[in-house]
């Protein structure tokens, strides 16, 4: 059955950051090597995510949640371990292959929205399509559809500065789904929103999951955790539950 197919498989993933001493916050996880400190953000994480699954990743600040999400989204390469996406090993891919993979397979929703302030909502949503050679007329069409899905078709020509936080985050969600990726990765999507807007954004993400998208949400908000059918808890770079 389709639901049972594995979308993402992580095996013993480790991530070490080499940082200057002043930048390294958590001394207990740091191994000092001269003036550079090696920080082990992930210490062997194994995880499997099925296609169409809704997964919550939670844990205290500095536990490695965002690092794990960035590795899942191919924004970061793991230091060691195996990462398989749709049955294809990812860790050996080069920058260009990873860029194409991000474009096709992932949609990102960030806590800080990360919209380009000079572009309208419509142009922001079109952004992923610019990099997969979709013709301009088709791009606009697809971006309008995505904005409609998040209920913002009336605000297509507004710039991010002219939108509320909740609206901005919904534009970011429209951008995440416009290229029809299989996985939506959301990093604290309601962190910068009031409870009403947060609720609306969460509902939008849950609705996308119901339509078959794999949705992975990093959060430490209890209200979101309670809505997640499956939770992965991280502490000090390790999966604890």
């Amino acid at each position, binding site marked *: 059955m389709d639901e049972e197919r594995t979308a993402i498989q992580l095996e013993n993933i480790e991530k070490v950051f080499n940082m200057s001493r002043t930048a390294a916050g958590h001394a207990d996880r740091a191994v000092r090597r001269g003036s550079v400190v090696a920080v082990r953000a992930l210490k062997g994480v194994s995880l499997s995510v099925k296609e169409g699954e809704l997964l919550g990743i939670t844990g205290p600040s500095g536990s490695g949640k965002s690092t794990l999400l960035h590795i899942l989204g191919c924004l970061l390469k793991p230091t060691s371990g195996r990462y398989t996406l749709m049955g294809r090993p990812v860790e050996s891919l080069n*920058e260009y292959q990873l860029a194409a993979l991000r474009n096709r397979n992932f949609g990102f929703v960030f806590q800080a929205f*990360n919209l380009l302030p000079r572009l309208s909502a419509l142009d922001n949503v079109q952004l992923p399509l610019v990099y997969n050679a979709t013709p301009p007329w088709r791009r606009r069409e697809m971006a309008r559809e995505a904005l409609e899905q998040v209920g913002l078709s009336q605000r297509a020509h507004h710039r991010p500065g002219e939108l509320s936080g909740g609206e901005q985050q919904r534009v970011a969600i429209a951008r995440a789904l416009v290229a029809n990726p299989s996985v939506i990765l959301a990093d604290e999507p309601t962190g910068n929103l009031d409870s009403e807007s947060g609720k609306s954004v969460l509902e939008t993400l849950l609705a996308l999951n119901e339509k078959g998208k794999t949705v992975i949400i990093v959060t430490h908000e209890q209200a979101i955790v309670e809505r997640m059918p499956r939770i992965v808890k991280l502490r000090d770079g390790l999966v604890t539950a």
Partner: protein
Amino acid sequence: MRPFDGVRIGVRSLTASWLRSLLSILGVVIGVGTLVVMISIGEGTKRQIVRSVEAMGSNLVVIENSMTAPLRRRETTGLSLRDVELLKEHCHLAKAVVPLKMLPVKVSYGGMTRLLVGQGTAAELPRVANLNVVEGRFLCQKDVDEFAKVCVLGAGVPKRLGVRESLVNKFLALNGQGFRVVGILKKKDYTKFINPDICVFIPVTVCQEMSENRESLSDILVQGVSSHLVHRTKQELSRLMKFFHKGSVDFTLWAQDELLERQKKVTETLQKALGAIALIALIIAGIGIMNVLLASVSERIREIGIRKAVGASPWDVLIQFVWESLLLTVTGGILGIGVGVAAGNWICRILTVHLPQAEHKWIAVTSPQSVVVSFGFALVTGVFFGLYPAVKAARLDPCEALAYE
């Protein structure tokens, strides 16, 4: 990413900080403009030289007073009227021998005074230098022999003196001495030795009297009997001149083709010097572009992170910044060509008015090559200086870029 998207994103980014972009474009305009001016004036000068030397006829040999000749001795006076007489008598290959003595003169008429070029010469000059009299007559042998205070004006002289009516038989002052105008020349742009349009021709004997260095002539023009024998004529002249000057080589002989070659070399050297200045200007413009793009990269680190997160490859990011650099240089290049063409013509007009002593009229010729070369240099500069910021942007780590505050 499609090229159209690259241009669109580039335009949007450059217009967002328009003043900075404008200043950067200004640098390119100056660089390209200088290059166009340099090439077009050089080209114009070359064409003028070729045209005028060709117009003089190929049977002409010029004996030039060689002031810097190493063998010049104190007892020699350089070229003199005695040489002219001796050559007329002894050089059988010479059809005509004409003296030329240049003297800066203050010409005054009706309250207007202008500094122009006085040329002391003889009656044969119009025939040798292809000059035509449009009104009155040219100098005659009698004028030379009798030290007559008469003069013939170049076509442009009356205009410079602010006179519209005929000046023939009128009196004007040359360096404070009264001269009667006996003729006006037809307009002619250039000969190697003189720009007749802005010259005042007086008998060579009178010119010698007015000059501090009385004996010495500037040049002697020798018209050979045939253009086929021009080199033999030159050899003959050289032999005779050495003999007249007791072995002293205080003169230089030029045939038409050598003149052409020499003038071309001078022009080329000038062009190279100006070209170096233009290139320096372009390099400075390039540094300006690099500065703008580096600032742009620093300001847009987060944007680069977002673009990478949604699927932009390092190449997409690199090409986007190269597009921005190209947009700056293409805009600057197009404007620079326009400015260069206008400035070239303007500079030539100024030079022609304010440097009347110059041997020729200044013209700027904008050839397709000069446009292509200037524009090409601008593009190369843009790509070269835009590449470093572009590579810097392309190498940014997406996670670090996204976390950038």
